């Protein structure tokens, strides 16, 4: 995959997001402290926020081009978004949530079929339940499945394991690895947890106050801990 994030500029309250990168790894981590602008960056890529200036291209599709006045709306960007608070629709059942973005079963193909996705994430028995009856780990997997069921070209994950305790994190990481390996989807993974980066990501972008301060391969050797960051 090829994700071009050129001349991205978005003024926020305290600082401005200024990003200019080209991403080609399968799973890229956006790593940084709270308030660094990571979520806003994901929002820009998903088309949920309008930048002051930007050129965003995914593979051969131009999604945002402020100079030309192009801003493809989120519903046409073919991206799956798993936000920090999951945003599972509380008034709909699990099944209704899962199928919300589903266009047609036949067009999805076997990889993204309802059966396959619910099997990989082990959520088949949850279909009839109400969203409020789910445990933390179950909610996480449902949110992930809901994004996958749109057959996206790129998966955006905003701190997916943030609200989970260590035991639960350890349980969910394999699911994420499975998603990475089974669906071979490019992923942008926002987190402030170093272990998650090392376990799941190929490349890491360090982000601080709106800027990418470092870019390296996500291995312990290439990305050592330099100081007490978090």
């Amino acid at each position: 995959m090829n994700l071009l994030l050129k001349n991205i500029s978005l003024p926020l309250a305290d600082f401005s997001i200024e990003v200019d990168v080209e991403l080609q790894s399968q799973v890229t981590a956006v790593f940084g402290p709270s308030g660094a602008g990571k979520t806003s960056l994901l929002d820009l890529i998903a088309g949920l926020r309008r930048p002051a200036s930007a050129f965003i291209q995914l593979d051969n599709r131009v999604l945002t081009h402020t100079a030309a006045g192009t801003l493809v709306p989120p519903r046409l960007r073919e991206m799956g978004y798993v936000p920090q608070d999951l945003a599972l629709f509380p008034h709909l059942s699990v099944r209704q949530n899962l199928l919300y973005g589903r266009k047609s079963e036949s067009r999805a193909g076997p990889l993204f079929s309802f059966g396959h996705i619910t099997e990989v994430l082990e959520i088949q028995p949850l279909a009839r339940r109400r969203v409020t009856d789910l445990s933390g780990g179950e909610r996480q997997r449902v949110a992930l499945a809901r994004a996958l069921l749109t057959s996206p070209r790129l998966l955006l994950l905003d701190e997916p394991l943030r609200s989970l305790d260590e035991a639960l994190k350890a349980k969910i990481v394999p699911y994420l690895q499975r998603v990475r390996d089974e669906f071979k989807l490019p992923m942008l993974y926002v987190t402030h947890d170093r272990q998650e980066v090392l376990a799941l990501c190929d490349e890491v972008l360090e982000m601080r106050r709106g800027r990418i301060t470092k870019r390296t391969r996500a291995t312990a050797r290439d990305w050592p801990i330099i100081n007490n960051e978090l």
Partner: protein
Amino acid sequence: MLIALGVMSFPLLVLSARIAFEQVHPRFEQIARTLGAGEARVFFTITLPLAWRGILGGMTLAFARALGEFGATIMVAGNIPGQTSTLSLSIFQHVQLGQDAQAYRLLGVSVALAFLAVWISECLLLRPRR
């Protein structure tokens, strides 16, 4: 008369509806968009279902307000008994004619109705979202 009442209550209804819509967390609508929903679908499947309680609560409050309406009604529609007489106007009339007992009775009805309306709107507005 209905027009007068409608006009007086309308701003309150619009305000309540707007507040109800704004209280729907924007993240729900945003995620619905990333899932492929157009604006109309987002409104009818996400915003409205999550806001309907607030809107209904607002309508009930608007009704309670209309209940107390006096000035506009008497100016616009007069106070023809049996036709354009409202609770408030009737109470006024009874008091004017010295018919205190009838006035008090209608007053009791008014208070009960207003109390009921506020109670219903509180239930709708305060009940935690499913």
